[in-house]
């Protein structure tokens, strides 16, 4: 992990309150390091000074390109993300990176992967899907959003494989929740990967009990490096907790109690 300044290359609104930001490195020799980032890892971004915004914001990595540029996607949900959304091309952003433990892509040899994303949990699944697809894995995606103007990356996921969009109100795609699709469809897959709000992860893991899968867990974070114990989740074994920022945010589906 390192602390570095990233340069904002582009900043675009891609859905309601949703920003896609391209970030470049301030040093060419960091490019190879970025190529090693694992899907599911995140950046811990400083968005202001200690007297305005004390806590950094954890933002998942949505993509990494061959030049070592990083794409993040975040929703404007408060003062910090609002400040971040106003950073224009050329601005510099202090970030710790890469943080956390991502999806164990190097240890997986899959024929078919099922990606299940909800809202702002969708972005890290794109980098994951792209990585797995490049290795020949068939990708099936089920992506849930609140309503039509919240939907993003539908074309990008469609390029990876079969993609189903659901919205809570039916204003785009199927009406309902991602778990409704799991109920209605007879999907054959080797492993599922899910990221989204905790209630969605609970519903997904309940629905897919006993199946091989991984989830990415959200929680308000402190240091983001594993030192402060602010973001923990109970281990399913009943003994102790896992640190979301260091041991996670990605866990095996049966590893933690949501």
């Amino acid at each position, binding site marked *: 992990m390192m*602390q570095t300044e990233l340069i904002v290359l582009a900043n675009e609104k891609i859905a309601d309150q949703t920003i896609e930001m391209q970030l470049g490195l301030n040093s060419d020799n960091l490019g190879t390091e970025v190529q090693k980032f694992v899907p599911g890892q995140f950046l811990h971004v400083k968005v202001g000074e200690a007297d305005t915004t*004390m806590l950094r914001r954890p933002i998942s990595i949505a993509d990494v390109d061959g030049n070592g540029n990083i794409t993040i996607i975040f929703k404007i949900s408060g003062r910090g993300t609002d400040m971040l959304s106003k950073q224009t091309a050329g601005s510099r952003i202090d970030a710790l990176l890469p943080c956390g433990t991502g999806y164990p892509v190097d240890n997986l040899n899959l024929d078919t992967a099922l990606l299940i994303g909800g809202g702002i949990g969708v972005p890290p699944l794109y980098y994951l899907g792209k990585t797995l697809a490049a290795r020949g894995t068939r990708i099936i995606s089920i992506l849930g959003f609140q309503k039509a103007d919240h939907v993003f990356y539908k074309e990008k996921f469609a390029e990876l494989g079969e993609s189903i969009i659901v919205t809570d109100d039916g204003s785009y795609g199927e009406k309902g929740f991602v778990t409704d699709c799991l109920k209605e469809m007879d999907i054959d897959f080797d492993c599922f990967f899910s990221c989204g709000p905790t209630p969605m992860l609970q519903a997904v893991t309940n629905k897919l009990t006993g199946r091989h899968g991984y989830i990415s867990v959200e929680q*308000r974070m*402190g240091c983001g490096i594993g030192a402060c*114990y602010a973001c923990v989740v109970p281990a399913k074994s009943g003994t102790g907790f896992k640190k979301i920022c260091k041991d996670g945010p990605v866990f095996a589906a049966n590893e933690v109690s949501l």
Partner: protein
Amino acid sequence: MISLETKLPGLDLKNPIMPASGCFGFGREFSELYDLNKLGAVVIKAATLNPRYGNQTPRVAETAAGMLNSIGLQNPGVETICSEELPFLSQFKTPVIANVAGSTIEEYVAVAKRLDESGLIQALELNISCPNVKEGGVQFGKDPVLAAEVTAQVKETVALPVYVKLSPNTADIVQMAKAVEAGGADGLSMINTLTGMQIDLSSKKPLLANQTGGLSGPAIKPVAIRMVYEVRQHSGLPIIGMGGISAAEDVLEFLIAGASAVAVGTANIHDPFACVNIIDRLPQLLEKYGFQNVEEAIGGGNRNEANVSRS
């Protein structure tokens, strides 16, 4: 050449900067970012007799100029700390101060004894001031008789110097300082967090699952400076000052108010390099304000005040 060295009971510090307990874990994560030999000392996360799993999440929330936390003294227990964490820290030439917490005097004594026997630390910090657990010592931090008693019993048991971490959540901080001094404390750490709460307007509920938490960060610095200054007038004990330090200027304020060293807490959350950045900047700042070394700055403000009051 400006010297940053400072001496405290049991601690010869190459500089007066240490990360505060609870904000630095047991040092492993920060050691991946910089050389821990740069620090004056390390104060580890609180140790209790048995493992503690802490409070429900969310445990942290942002406030104006600060942060609320309700971690709840999560730690793997003193035995694991002694066998798995302290050996890691002992590879660095940096003194280690162990923060000790408990629910009873007997637990404080047992934890302190185990840490003392480890031979891997240089001082103890009695945490009688954590606001986030119902039976985590805060009752000791509000009652001068209990505070003196727990200090005295730990002192009787261990050979290590004992610093007592005082709570600002008390009506009379000077009375508490005098009480633990009478109990035999070698030094004071001050201050711990102030109890606070923040409401989320959208849910109309407190932001922390625990409802209340400890307020830290720049918001509490003036309170901490005032308390260090007041205690310095009435107690001869050396003070490790803390509360909202995020820059070298803050350190110099604490030194002038009467602290002999400082601990940096929440700033590490905002910027993991906060301690080393402060250490790098401190010599230049001391020189700017006319101090030849750290020792000269300690209590400088008090001496001026005393002169004025006598004239």
